[in-house]
Every structure is written in C-alpha cells, then in structure tokens.
C-alpha cells in the first residue's frame, strides 16, 4: 500500500481506518495466495433456484449473525462502557422460542413465522431488559451482570427445547436461512441490510445516537442536561435483545434445527472483537455502527481464509487470536499516537507540503 493511500485513509476515514485496512490486507493476502478465492459463481441449488456462490458469498453470508449482534453490542458498549457476554446464550434462548412456537402451530406459514419471530423478540427483549436493569438501575458492571445469563442461558434454552435438538422443516424457514426463490443473494445478508437500515432510520428519526454517546462519554453531564441515563442504558440492552432475536432466528433457520449447546457458541467474544476492530472504544462513548459491521466481516473473512488454507479448525482460533491481537494493538491509542507522530514528522521534513490545518 502506498504512502499516499495511507494518508488519505487517516484523513478521511477516522475511526474506520483500522477495519478497512484490515479488510484490504486480507483481500491483498488472498489475491497473492490464490486469486480464485474471489471467484463468484452462479449455480442452481437443490431447490432449483439460481444462487450466487463462492468464498465472498460465504464470508458475507456467514458473518450475518455476527454483524447483527455487533450492531446491538456497539450500542450497549457505547452507552454502558461494557459488553454483554450473554448474547450467545440469549440467542440460543431466542432460537429455541422461535422453534418452539413453530412446532406448536398446526402449519408453518408466513404469519406463524412472524408470530414466532415476534415471540423470540419479546423473550430476548425481556432478557435484555433483565441485563439492562442490572446494569442501569443496580449499576453492576455489564460483564458481571450478563455473566448470569451467560452461565445459565443455554440451560434455559434446553428447557424450552425439552431436551434434544428439535428441528423444523418448512420452505419458509429454508428461505430465511438460505435463499428466497428467485433471489440469488443469501437471505441472511438481506436481513443484515434490513437491520442496518432499520438502525440507520432509528438514528435518523430519534436522538438515540447523540443521547447514547452523551451518556457513555459523560453520564453526569448527560444527566444534568436532562437525559435519562438509566433509560438510555436499558434501551441499549433492549435493542441488543432485538438483534439477539434476529441472530438467533437466522442461526436456527440456516439448518432448521436448534441445538442449544452449539447455536452461536462463543459468538460473544467475536461480537466484542467486531466492535473493537470497528474502532469503537470499549470503554463507551463515541461509536460507529458501520465500523462494527466491517469488523464482523473482517473476523469472518479471516476465518474463511484460514479454512481455505486448510488450517486445522483447532488451530484457526489461535491464528485468529494472533491477527486480532495485532489489529487491536494497532488500533490502540498508544500506537495511533506514535503513528500520528511519524506522519507529522514526515510532513515536517517535506517543506512543499503545507502544515496540516495551520490556518
């Protein structure tokens, strides 16, 4: 990457610099390794639909749950200065509710799927507000507060399932989890787009962004400006609950099966990492949803790249850890400051370039 490009990034992208550089590095790496990695094919799936396939599709499709969760996690992080580690367990609960409702209705149609999803949403929002209440009202640190649900969430999912791994079989569920007939893009990808747009609209038509950031940066000042900090924190957890329900429902629909032990297992760590890679301060405050979404794709691209290299999946986690540590360290304030100093110095040594913003 040329120096000029670097400068352009640091000037224009701000918070998104790190995640975008990460994506570009992964793309470059794969281009050198094997250009066919980026091959996008068109195929007929077993239901006879024309669909897109290839590693890129796998990456964007596979990261859907992570991306949706990262959106909600970003809000919680911003408002509360901490993370919800129970999202995986909560998604297992939401997924179980989704399946439970579908199994209890006589026939699965669009309406019953909607009912099942709304029920999953409500349950996830209730658990979200439980977490949120512990954090916002009782001022318990988010990681500690959500540890409770993290620990027993999958047991609750087990109860809902009544043991075993219930399955649902319906063209509608298949459509949600893989492809809608006639649309070659995986449905989970469309759902991520829909959720992202929904949040964009939420930010546009409410003061959610300003209030959340204010609460996260300076709770005391926010309160003295009339913002109900408790409510904002609670709200962030409830919105995360919605994201959890969406992610859980996608996860279940992919296979038409709910396994309370494995559904979105360990996703909380990836979600938090996506938020961190996205350049968001894990201590709360200013945030960028787009950063977190890109962060989710970075993680997924890394995973798929490693799979494509036939790295043993037991080793994948270790490799992932190394790359992620690098990314997070590069994004840390210390390194950023050093980097800024370096570029400043290089500018200093080049008289033809005017000092940045010296006016």
């Amino acid at each position, binding site marked *: 990457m040329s120096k000029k490009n670097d400068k352009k990034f640091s000037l224009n992208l701000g918070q998104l610099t790190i995640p975008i550089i990460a994506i570009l590095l992964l793309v470059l790496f794969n281009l050198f390794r094997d250009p*066919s*990695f980026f*091959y996008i094919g068109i*195929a*007929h*799936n*077993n*239901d006879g639909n024309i*669909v897109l*396939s*290839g*590693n890129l599709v*796998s990456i964007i499709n*596979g990261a859907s749950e992570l991306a949706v969760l990262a959106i909600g996690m970003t809000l919680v992080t911003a408002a509360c200065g901490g993370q919800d580690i129970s999202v995986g367990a909560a998604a297992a609960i939401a997924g179980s509710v989704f399946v439970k409702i579908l199994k209890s209705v006589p026939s699965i149609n669009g309406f019953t799927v909607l009912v099942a999803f709304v029920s999953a949403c409500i349950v996830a929002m*209730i*658990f979200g*507000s*439980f977490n949120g*209440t*512990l954090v916002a*009202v*009782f001022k318990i640190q988010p990681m500690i507060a959500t540890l*409770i*649900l993290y*620990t*027993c969430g999958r*047991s*609750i999912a*087990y*109860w809902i399932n*009544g*043991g*075993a*791994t*219930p*399955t649902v079989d319906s063209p509608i569920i298949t459509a949600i*989890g*893989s*492809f809608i007939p006639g649309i070659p893009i*995986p449905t989970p990808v469309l759902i991520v787009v829909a959720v992202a747009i929904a949040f964009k609209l939420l930010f546009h038509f409410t003061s959610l962004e300003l209030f959340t950031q204010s609460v996260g940066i300076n709770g005391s000042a926010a309160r003295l400006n009339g913002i109900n900090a408790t409510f904002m924190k609670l709200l962030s957890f409830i919105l995360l609950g919605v994201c959890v329900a969406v992610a859980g429902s996608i*996860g279940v629909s*992919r*296979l*038409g*099966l709910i*396994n309370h*032990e*494995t*559904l*979105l*297992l360990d996703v909380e760590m990836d979600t938090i990492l996506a938020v961190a890679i996205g350049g968001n301060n894990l201590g709360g405050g200013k945030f960028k949803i787009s950063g977190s979404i890109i962060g989710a794709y970075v993680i997924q691209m890394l*995973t*798929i790249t490693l*799979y*494509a290299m*036939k790295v*043993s*999946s*037991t080793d994948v986690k270790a490799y992932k850890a190394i790359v992620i540590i690098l990314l997070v360290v590069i994004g840390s304030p210390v390194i950023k400051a050093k980097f800024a100093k370096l570029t400043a110095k290089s500018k200093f040594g080049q008289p033809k370039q005017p000092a940045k913003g010296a006016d």
Partner: protein
Amino acid sequence: MRKFKALLLVVVLTLTMVLGACGSAANSGSGSGSGSQGGDKAPAKSSDGPIKVGVVNNPPSESGYREANVKDMEAVFSAANGYELKTFYNIKNDEQLQAAQGFITEGVDYLLISAAETTGWDEVLKKAKEAGIKVYLFDRMINVDESLYEAAVVSDMSKEGETAVNWLLAQNLPEYKVIHIQGAMGSDAQIGRTGALDAQFESGKMTKVVQQTATWDEAEAKKIVESVINSGEDFNVIYAENDGMAKGAVAALDEHGITHGVNGKVIVMGFDCNKWALRELKAGAWNYDGQCSPFQAQIISDLIKGVKTASSKIIINEEKGFDAKELTDDDINTYGLGE
C-alpha cells in the same frame, strides 16, 4: 417513575428467581422427583419391598444421547417394574462422588454409575462393597479393580466407527473422496468415530479431502463443507461425527446444488440416530446413521433380576448402524433419540 421502578424490581426479582432456580436445578435436577418416589413408601426391607436403585449419571442437558439415556433409566427402573429409583445428575466428578456416598449411606441395594471422570472412584466403590451394595457401571468405564463392580455395560466407540466404515466400504464406490467432520477433539465419541476412518486414509483406500473438527457445531460444519466447495475440490463422501454436523454439511450441499443421499452424488453419514436424522435417512437425503446406543437400562435390569447372567465383567452394548435403504418406521420409533 416510581411505578416504573417498582415494576422493574418485580421483573428483576422474578427473573432472578427463575434464573436462580435454573442454577440450582442443574445441580439437583431430579432431587425432588426421586424424593417423592422414595418418600411415599414406608421404609421396607430390601428383601420384600421394591429394589432400591441409586443412579449417578451426567445431566440430561449434556446431550441428546444423555437425554435418551436418562429417560431410558427412569423408564426401566420404575415403580411399576418393582424398583425404587434415586437419581443424581451432575457433570462434576466430585459432586457425583458425594452423591454416590450419600446413596451408600441411605442404603440402596444397587448403585449404577456413569462417571464424569474415570478416576477417583476407588474409595467409594470399596465402601459400597463393604456395605454389600452391588455396583454396575454403564456407558462409561472407571479405572478401578474389576472386583469392585458386578458388570460394566458400555459402548465400544471404536467398534461404532468400524461399523460405519465397513458399511462405507461395502458401498463399493470406485473412489472415496471424504470430507471428514470431527466432533470435539479428544472426546470419546470423536476418538472412536475417527479411528476407523483414519486407518482407511492411511491405507490409501480412501482419500482425505479435508479433516476438520467442527466441535459438534452444525454451523461450523456447514462452513467447512462450504470452503471445500468454494475451493472447487471434488468429494463424494461426507462423514460427520454427529447428526447435527451432518445436517450442517447437507445445508451447504443444498445451497450449492450438489445432490446427496440415496441416488445422489455425495454420500452423507451421520451418528447418534436422532429421530429427525433417521427421518432424513428414511427420506433418502442421507445414506447412513450410526448409533452409540444409550439403552443400557434393560440389560442391567435383567442382570439384577437374574433374567440373564453376565458372561464377562464388561458387556459391550450392541451398536446399530442404519442404511437408508433398509430403515423402517419401527426402527425410527425404537432407536431414534428425542422426538
């Protein structure tokens, strides 16, 4: 605002109670059930009353296998069959040891154990022997002297793998290009199910396209298969070490338009014999499903009641393997796990 806060408090308290109950239930899940069973009856001498059986097992939430295993135990050792059952389900060896100790003190006639760990049981089993309590091991072996138990009814995991691989060899494919999706590395089931296939890879009879662990995770299995498809490599067998991962693999095949199952391009093999998996098998979407039988209760009951006698200390439970073409609805009902 006050009202809102009060409401919040109620919600939180309720949830806390629910969650709290969940925590405690994990430890003593069946305590209440066995208590009522035992409490109703006047203490009877073991000779003329029901046979008192104490079962120490892993919790049913551990897996579908365990779920079926626990259900089977509770069904066979029922009051109707002349038993008084006390149960303790926990995933921790220490707690299991304590519970076994408790059963000995209470004075059960038989102690049935599926231990969380293979070590640490000498003391307890010696005490049981001193108290004249007969011990049966089921599902899992324990590292103790043979004299400390009557019999062990266990599965031979490696045999399970061999059965499956032998079935695969019997298909007489011109070539075997196998995607091997493993369970959590180091688990008994993974070791047993991997062994026989590894031997084939080594002998060169089968080709390993990819061998990856998905740690029993369906979604991970899908990713693994997807990455092979995306790489353009050819394969004609998917050997997944449980049903869920097989389902994940099949989802990947479906999305990429690759046929599978009976008359399909790719042979799909799974394990565990969940009912839903057997139905997939019956529908011809899969080819084979192997089972590590969770049904040891009847064998032990027969031994206790003297209907049968043990030919050796270690009784290998019969393992099943189902071919899609031979599977019947009866098989699904008899051997299928879950619903």
